[in-house]
């Protein structure tokens, strides 16, 4: 389906002239979601469309700016105890939910309890697990969250299991957003929040419509309304953009060159250093892959620069480690594994595989990853690594990798919050093997202790130094084929003002975005 769409793209581009000076719409229209949100209940936000909507309708104690800074939201300030294990959040006063209920500290406790409550079936408790007793509560071993208390209506005291310096960053995740104390069973359809927008209508698989919350503490949204359309097929989203019906488009990875090479289209492009790592997880417990030399050989055997240039039109930065270059902790001067088949063969020989090895490379049906996988297969062959491609529908492929059933698995990882910890810990810490995110099944006690120490370290500078050292180790141990950090490309209509592409998926609340309408308002 995608391939024929790509064939049509030049026609699309030829067919449309540049956008005009304005639109006849008063509604901002987003086209980024390609499936219906799971629910509008923060406690159920495990997918991107849900998380985005939650960031419109609700607030957390903190929130992300488009450029991924963590700023105060329902908490105006906070301080931590010197050892970093107790946080005191001072809550914003005078905030009301869309049903008029005033926002008070009790609702924070209730919201987080709901997230962890097994009956709610959210499935994403981990951002709150650092709180003392949260895990026990979630597992049904405690009737309350021990580390959580509200001494008065505008203060929350959080005692953590152990010091965790970046905890406030996790509170900007959609799942930690604050809902009223008592929610009806159909809350997921009829949400009540304090966020910048209010839900007007949800037409499943079609669109969600929002109206501004005039009283939002951060300043009411400037536009009249916001519509999030659900467009399943990327080529259709492109056509909607070309027709001027949507304001923001996430350009499909396979079609980047067509946009960048067109003088008119180019002007509409905007991009951001995205916190997305694309890599091939190497299962470090399977056969020859347990040998670090073999894993390094895999890294030397691949010409990532050429792949980046030809398959994603140069929109990636070659990865040499797991920390994105835009985050503190990335060692920008490090030279990654360079394409060198002689070196790869030599390493394989040293490891005792002079005749090469046979491995299976798993991929989902994502068309870009299928092409990457085919290319990797050809490269690895040059160094004597014989690859069998296994293509599965994405849920099945992911599950196989989580159960340790894949040698190599091509995948990506988007940051939930802007911190190196969000890469090092889930992807490579041995506590997260399998379902936790570490599908390399990498287990290096030295790496573990560095990351654990970093999580506990309250001093930013020392923490970053620990991240760096852990990343250096991961780079050397090569529990993955490091591919690239993808930089998302957007097209924004010329009549839109103030849209900054978000680095984190829920980092753009559209409150300062304006739409220049050609025809006067008709109401």
């Amino acid at each position, binding site marked *: 389906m995608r391939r*024929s769409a790509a064939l049509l793209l030049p026609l699309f581009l030829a067919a449309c002239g540049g956008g005009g000076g304005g639109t006849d719409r008063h509604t901002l229209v987003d086209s980024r979601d390609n499936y219906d949100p799971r629910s509008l209940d923060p406690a159920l936000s495990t997918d991107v469309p849900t998380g985005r909507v939650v960031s419109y309708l609700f607030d957390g104690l903190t929130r992300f700016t488009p450029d991924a800074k963590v700023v105060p939201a329902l908490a105006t300030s906070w301080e931590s105890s010197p050892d970093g294990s107790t946080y005191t959040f001072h809550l914003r006063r005078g905030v009301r939910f869309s049903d008029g209920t005033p926002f008070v500290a009790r609702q924070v406790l209730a919201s987080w309890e709901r997230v962890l409550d097994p*009956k709610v079936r959210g499935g994403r408790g981990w951002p709150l697990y650092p709180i003392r007793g949260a895990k026990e509560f979630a597992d049904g071993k405690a009737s309350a969250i021990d580390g959580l208390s509200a001494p008065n209506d505008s203060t929350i005291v959080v005692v953590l299991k152990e010091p965790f310096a970046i905890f406030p960053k996790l509170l900007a995740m959609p799942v930690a957003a604050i809902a009223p104390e008592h929610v009806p069973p159909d809350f997921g359809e009829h949400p009540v929040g304090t966020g910048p927008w209010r839900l007007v209508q949800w037409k499943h698989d079609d669109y969600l419509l929002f109206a501004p919350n005039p009283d939002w503490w951060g300043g009411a949204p400037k536009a009249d309304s916001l519509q999030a359309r659900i467009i399943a097929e990327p080529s259709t989203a492109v056509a909607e953009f070309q027709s001027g019906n949507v304001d923001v488009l996430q350009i499909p990875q396979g079609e980047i060159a067509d946009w960048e090479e067109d003088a008119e289209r180019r002007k509409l492009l905007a991009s951001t250093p995205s916190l997305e790592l694309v890599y091939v997880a190497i299962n470090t417990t399977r056969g020859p892959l347990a040998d670090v030399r073999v894993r390094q050989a895999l890294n030397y055997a691949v010409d990532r620069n050429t792949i980046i240039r030809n398959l994603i039109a140069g929109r990636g930065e070659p990865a040499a480690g797991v920390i994105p270059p835009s985050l503190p902790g990335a060692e920008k001067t490090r030279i990654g594994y360079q394409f060198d088949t002689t070196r790869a063969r030599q390493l394989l020989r040293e490891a005792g595989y002079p005749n090469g090895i046979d491995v299976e490379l798993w991929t989902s049906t994502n068309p870009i990853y299928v092409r990457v996988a085919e290319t990797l297969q050809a490269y690895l062959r040059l160094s004597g690594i014989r690859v069998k491609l296994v293509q599965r529908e994405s849920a099945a492929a992911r599950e196989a990798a989580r159960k340790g059933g894949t040698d190599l698995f091509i995948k990506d990882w988007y940051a939930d919050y802007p911190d190196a910890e969000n890469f090092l810990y889930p992807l490579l810490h041995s506590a997260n093997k399998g379902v936790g995110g570490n599908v390399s099944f990498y287990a290096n006690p030295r790496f573990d202790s560095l990351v654990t120490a970093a999580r506990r370290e309250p001093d930013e500078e020392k923490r970053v130094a620990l991240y760096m050292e852990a990343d250096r180790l991961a780079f050397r141990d090569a529990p993955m084929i490091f591919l690239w950090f993808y930089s998302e490309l957007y097209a924004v209509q010329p009549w839109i003002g103030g849209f900054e592409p978000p680095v984190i998926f829920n980092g753009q609340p559209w409150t300062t975005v304006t739409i220049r309408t050609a025809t006067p308002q008709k109401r």
Partner: protein
Amino acid sequence: MSAFIIRRLLLAIPTLVGVLVVAFLLLYVAPGDPVMAMVGERADEETIARLRAELRLDDPLPVQFGHYVAGIARGDLGRSYITNRPIERDIRERFPKTLQLAGAAMLLATVCGVTLGVLSARRPGGAIDRFGLALAYLGISFPVYWVGLLLILLFAVTLHWLPPSGFGGLRYLILPALALGMRSIAFLARMTRSAMLDSLGADYVRTARAKGLRERVVVVRHALRNALIPIITVLGLDFGAYLTGSILTETIFSWPGIGRYVVNAIARRDLPAIQGSVLFLSAVFVLVNLLTDVAYAKADPRVTYS
């Protein structure tokens, strides 16, 4: 006739029970765990175990099946694992939209396809016949998503006549109905043409002409009426197919119908949603087939069911 209908409806019950069993078992054989899909990218074993227990996925298969069948017997299709919404409401929201699209596609197919077929048969080898042949080739061989994208490109992006995608009034319906109905138009045109050629050469047509009837009456009342059986067959089969699986068209045109619902449910391993919609769509299919059979009898008095 009514006895026939009642018998067919009763026969549908074992069919649907069979569908139920197969849909239930297939999903447990197929790879992919609903809980894994629920928790997203990062989770822990305890959460997964807890959710499995909460969803009763750890019960023995016969117990789960019994539980499910008991729900169905009460008329309850259950709730989605993922969204926690009742499946029945989801289907009720989406099926009318699919029905609308399928109906429009069938209407287009009937009007355009039959007309083209009749006109083609009137002068075999003539201009209309050759045009019809070319159209049929294209309509049958082009895949629906390609036709769909071309239609969007031409009528929406270039000419700005119609919206590229979405759900709304008639304007939103035209392109997806055309894309979906294209194959049926082509197929029906060819089908009608050959059936018409047969009947136009038949003795009763010569008799009708000899009686001095006007050509229009000869063609429509005598020849077409007799050519209806194969046309109804095609219409019935296609309608059944469109009602149950216009997934590509719905995807291309962002049409919020049942096809996309099923695909999303499968991608997320939402077992109750998949089972519920498969069961519902099977019932629809059975019903459409029954209606087709009834239409045979209406079209041709020689067809009787006893």
